[in-house]
């Protein structure tokens, strides 16, 4: 073995700041790219990354991880899991790859931006690994998605989503560009590595891994939990940055950065991971409810981390906790109605047994969402196909890009929020999204949601087909009910005309 321990030389490898002479510090580290907080290079030199690893360890550990993930996949390739799994689970895989693969790639660039413009050498070095990690996540997930691409055109969205004007692609870009590439290195270290990677990625990558293991989808379970081991390391970039910022009197600004990023991430993750865990995963393979995962990873783990670093809980925390009871349910209902605009097939997920589970996990579910699904099931049973699709568009938020949901059965629980700025009204799903816009209106002004584009006549023809094509969705890739509406047959007591009505409905849809 080599004679020196890492600790004997590690500090030398991060003692790489010098005083430039042929260009100024401001030219090499412009504030807009480096540090909106305005700390000096010397102040940043107190930065001490807690999760230390050397290049030598990195390539050894990472090649082990890859050998493991790819060999599990190879060993299971002949099991044809994709052909046998429940349709709802296949939909989760399609949703996951389409939403995640290229988002990872923006993080490649983001980490590299910290590797270039971070004023602390320790941040630059850890972000160098972070950039490599995110390339791993892009590539390994694309590779796994591609394995089954000959079986479904929808898997093409693994590479396609973010290149389209699909509403989900727009929403994903808006969040990623706001918290990653649209920020300086210091702010990004908080927004990307602390808020996103220490908080929310756990929901999708460990929550779904737990369900996948119960499903017997060991290839996917192993893949995404392996991805999360990289996140656990490089997410620590932000912890060390927060310590420097707070020590230098920047708590209020850091607090605001955490609050912006946390809320933006919550808005995307509830819509992605929530329906996957509470509706699309086959009932017998569900490990915990989405709310339980949120409480395990966000409330118990992340909230405590916020406090430990000397920050406060975000100002909207009580509201956030309340939304863990309903965002995913109204979001799922809306996604199901908008299924033609998706690259996956949402499962209803509301058979009597599933409703019993939902009622147990979310007391009052039947009285709230169950009654709405009754209406839908009745329409399926009676072949009222036109009622199974929306005849207009949902209002979309100009910050998060998502529809605006509340609790049904409580009068007008759902509320709109808006700001009139410049020539127009900007619309928001919630007080936190409005707050984000109002902090820096010129940063977001001019943004057009799909709804804004329809109103402005940007989408031609403004028909349903025209809009779907504008969003990049062509026949053969548009989503439909994952189970061919079978759930609706079991959702209501048997009726005399049930079989005939349903056969028509199924054939027509």
């Amino acid at each position, binding site marked *: *073995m*080599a*004679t*020196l321990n890492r600790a004997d*030389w*590690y500090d*030398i*490898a991060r*003692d790489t700041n*010098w005083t*430039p*002479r*042929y*260009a100024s510090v401001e030219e*090499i580290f412009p504030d*807009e790219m480096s540090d909106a907080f305005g700390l000096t290079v010397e102040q940043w030199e107190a930065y001490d990354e807690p999760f230390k690893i050397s*290049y*030598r360890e*990195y*390539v*050894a550990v990472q*090649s082990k991880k890859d050998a493991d993930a790819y060999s599990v996949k190879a060993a299971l390739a002949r099991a044809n899991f994709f052909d046998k799994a429940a349709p709802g689970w296949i939909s989760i895989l399609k949703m996951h790859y389409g939403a995640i*693969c*290229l988002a990872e*790639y*923006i993080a*490649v*660039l*983001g980490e*590299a931006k910290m*590797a*270039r413009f971070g004023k602390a*050498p320790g941040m*630059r*070095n850890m972000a*160098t690994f972070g*950039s*490599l990690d995110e390339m*791993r996540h892009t*590539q390994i997930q694309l*590779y796994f998605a591609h394995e089954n*691409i*000959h*079986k479904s*055109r929808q898997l*093409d969205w693994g*590479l*396609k989503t973010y*290149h389209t*004007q699909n509403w989900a692609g*727009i929403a994903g870009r808006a969040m*990623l560009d706001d918290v990653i*590439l*649209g*920020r300086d290195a210091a702010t990004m270290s908080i927004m990307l590595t602390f808020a996103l990677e220490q908080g929310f990625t756990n929901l999708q990558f460990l929550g779904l891994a737990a369900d996948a293991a119960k499903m017997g989808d060991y290839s996917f379970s192993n893949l995404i939990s392996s991805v999360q081991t990289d996140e656990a390391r490089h997410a620590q970039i932000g912890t060390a940055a927060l310590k420097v910022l707070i020590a230098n009197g920047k708590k209020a600004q850091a607090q605001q950065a955490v609050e912006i990023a946390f809320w933006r991430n919550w808005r995307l993750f509830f819509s992605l991971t929530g329906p996957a865990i509470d509706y699309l995963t086959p009932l017998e393979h569900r490990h915990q409810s989405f709310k339980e995962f949120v409480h395990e990873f966000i409330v118990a783990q992340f909230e405590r981390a916020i406090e430990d670093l000397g920050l406060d809980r975000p100002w909207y925390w009580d509201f956030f906790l309340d939304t863990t009871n309903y965002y995913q349910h109204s979001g799922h209902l809306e996604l199901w109605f908008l299924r033609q605009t998706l690259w996956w097939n949402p499962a209803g997920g509301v058979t009597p047994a599933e409703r019993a589970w939902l009622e147990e996990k979310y007391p009052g579910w039947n009285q709230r969402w169950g009654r709405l699904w009754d209406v839908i099931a009745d329409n399926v049973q009676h072949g009222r196909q036109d009622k199974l699709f929306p005849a207009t568009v949902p209002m979309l938020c100009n910050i998060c890009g998502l529809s605006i949901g509340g609790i049904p059965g409580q009068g007008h629980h759902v509320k709109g929020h808006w700001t009139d700025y410049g020539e127009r009204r900007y619309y928001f799903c919630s007080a936190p999204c409005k707050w984000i816009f109002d902090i820096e209106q*010129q940063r977001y002004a*001019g*943004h057009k949601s799909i709804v804004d584009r329809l109103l402005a006549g940007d989408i031609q023809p403004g028909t349903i087909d025209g809009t779907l094509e504008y969003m990049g969705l*062509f*026949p053969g890739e548009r989503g439909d009910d994952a189970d061919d509406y079978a759930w609706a047959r079991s959702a209501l007591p048997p009726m005399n005309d049930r079989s005939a009505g349903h056969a028509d409905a199924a054939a027509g849809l």
Partner: protein
Amino acid sequence: MDNAPTGSDARTGATLGPLKTWSYLAAQKRRPSEYEIVSVHTLYNNDNAQVPLELAAGVPMNRWYRRYRNESRLRHADWNAFRDPDARVYRSYVAAQDKEEIYVDGLLDQYNALGHDARLAPAWAETLARLYTPLRYLLHAAQMCAAYSVTMAPSSTLANCAVFEMADQFRWVSRVAYRTAELAKAWPGLGFRTGERRRWEEDPAWQPYRMLMEKLLATYDWGESVVALNVVALPAVDAGLRLLADSALEQGDPLTGFLLEAQLKDSARRNRWVRAFMQFAQDQDGSRDAVAEWLAKWQPLGEAAAAAYGEDLPGGAGRAATAIQAMRGLQDTLAAARAAAP
């Protein structure tokens, strides 16, 4: 905005069926490699040239991308068509570099067992303190420049090459740091570990390299940055390292010589994609003119740097001219546009 082919039959109303690969790659009519499946078209922020990020057009980063990437004089009709000749992907990179690092560990163990450092000539040990261990600053500057190429690259296939380059530079920052600690133990009092920054900032042998790297760090035009770094600056650094390796072998320091050779192996891989990239990137006259201008501006800085450093090495004065000649040859090869079709 979406320049991916979504299927030529899309607008006829026909139902799209599954393909054998991504629709983006299906057009190329041959089975894509693993490299292509996981590397091509994974960057989306170059789809919309006017508003690269999904934020107001005027936010600083949208202006930055427009000004420094999209309006760079280095242009190509389809940056996504670039391919790394080594077809390197993440998993092959970490696997290959793990093997290389095992080799380096072996070198260190072997020479440690021989009491290598203690047996160096004192004068050579001083030379290492002056001209080897301050190298980590130079390599870290290169790591930062490569990181900039990653953030600004107009396609993923190019950004990926830059990611590996950034990681390679960090690899050698780490190994130089490791050697610094070892040499500090064997040769206390020569300023190993404590003196590198001062030497990097003040020793005349380093100043032209430092000027080169600091000016590069302040160069934000993406095309100029990638060309000056890879065609001029890093080959100039390598020329110095080659001279250092020659001196080391002559001066009874095989370990430094072999470490530098291992380091230059990474450079050889970089030179392969740089050469392919420069051929690819100069398909347009405008790009060729820009490259010629940039080379004229940066090459004198590179040559001055390699010369100042090389001539200061023991025995370097006699070799530096030849080494710089070789460096020019390499730079010309790297910079060459594809030969025009007859």
